[in-house]
């Protein structure tokens, strides 16, 4: 992606997140039961939804990779999952803070969404050791795609089963007895959601660009110095398909 479009993307993201947080802190009213701490909802929930969506997007890229054999899809699957795993860390941290504030403990086992998210996170965390353990690039890509597809199907199953296992389900923020979120909270939430979604997209685009650039750099290096064959560059070991991705 060209640098101007990346810059535009980054500016839009910063503006949306800035606007979202400004709305949440200065305009949206405090929630009646939980007060100020409930505002972490505007960060925690979008992060969680986007992380899960990113895992599913990774699975879709993986399907395309297996169907076409084009390493660029594998790279997209890798970057999607990678960004979502990072978001996942933020989800677990913000979730723990929220749990501490509203239930007095850093971790609660009877909140099915949080527990399900932890299980999904643990599964996707194994994506890295899996890639590290397969030296052959092409095979690494195929195996990683098989994993991404299986894990993508696992996500909804896991949420369903963990939710079934709860004897008591905490009230959902979106569907309370009196009809869900009031309008101004929805506005705050949607702006934050758009901001976090753009953040995910921007990070994915940045990493894709960085990978393409380093692949191009190592191609140029190889062309300059035919004798030095180890042109893989830093961090290329689990970077899928960097050697043969068109820029």
């Amino acid at each position, binding site marked *: 992606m060209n640098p101007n479009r990346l810059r535009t993307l980054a500016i839009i993201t910063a503006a949306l997140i800035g606007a979202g947080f400004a709305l949440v802190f200065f305009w949206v009213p405090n929630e009646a039961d939980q007060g100020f701490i409930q505002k972490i909802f505007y960060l925690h929930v979008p992060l969680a939804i986007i992380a899960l969506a990113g895992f599913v997007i990774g699975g879709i890229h993986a399907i395309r990779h*297996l169907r076409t054999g084009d390493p660029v899809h594998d790279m997209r699957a890798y970057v999607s999952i990678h960004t979502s795993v990072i978001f996942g860390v933020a989800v677990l941290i913000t979730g723990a803070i929220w749990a501490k504030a509203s239930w007095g403990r850093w971790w609660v086992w009877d909140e099915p969404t949080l527990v399900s998210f932890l*299980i999904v996170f*643990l*599964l996707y965390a*194994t994506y890295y*050791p*899996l890639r*590290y*353990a*397969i*030296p052959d690039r092409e*095979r690494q890509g*195929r*195996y990683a*795609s*098989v*994993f991404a*597809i*299986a*894990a993508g*199907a*696992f996500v909804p*199953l*896991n949420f*369903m*089963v*963990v939710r*079934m*296992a709860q004897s008591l389900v905490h009230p959902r923020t979106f569907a309370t007895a009196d009809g869900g979120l009031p309008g101004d909270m929805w506005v705050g939430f949607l702006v934050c959601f758009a901001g976090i979604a753009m953040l995910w997209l921007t990070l994915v685009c940045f990493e894709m660009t960085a990978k393409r650039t380093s692949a191009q750099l190592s191609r140029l290096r190889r062309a300059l110095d035919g004798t030095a064959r180890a042109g893989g560059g830093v961090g290329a070991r689990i970077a899928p398909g960097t050697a043969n991705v068109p820029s």
Partner: protein
Amino acid sequence: MNGPSTFSAVATILGKDLRVELRTLQSIPAMVLFSTTIYVIFRFGLDRTQLDGGLATGVLLVTILFAALLAINRLFVAEREQGGFEAIRLAPVDGTALFLAKALALLVYLTILELFAIPVFWLFFLDSGTGLLPMLPVVLLLNGALATTGALISPIATNSTARDLIGPLILLPLLVPPMVAASAAGAKLLLAGGPDYDKYASWLGALGLYDAIFLLIGWAVFDFLLED
């Protein structure tokens, strides 16, 4: 392709695997021994001699899970060491036959393991075995989950450089949903006061759904693990 049908290929590979197991006795005796030792460790780890409810289910299912990991780790080792992967690529059969045969082989191993491990569990820990009968469908469906995910993940682990590490690392989180479902069903069935069938059918349904989905995924993607 005019080769043998997938069904006969599955039967041939399954027959080969079971014959090899019968001659070398590599997996099943180890699984049986392992499960008994795990029971002893649980007896002291939990400091209990009698179990019921959720604790009993946990001990039984975790023991089966760990014993299954032993078999799953070894499932494709012979294929790697003796050229089985190349052979299936060269043979005019659908590569999926290998997945189905390995999943069936795992099912057979697990069933034989449980023929020993469940009576021993009864003998060691339970007052009455009335809850074990309705527990059988739960365990059989859990076997299905172990077999399908095991046959899918095992070749990935076997062809990686960190073999014994990658398999359990991926499989354990992947197997959390069926373990949750089987434990929730079992916790009610193995109550000291006799089995309670609350939500029994929905748990069996959830296990069956998991088995079906991973069978389909294995069917759809296994060929990609065989290409070279």
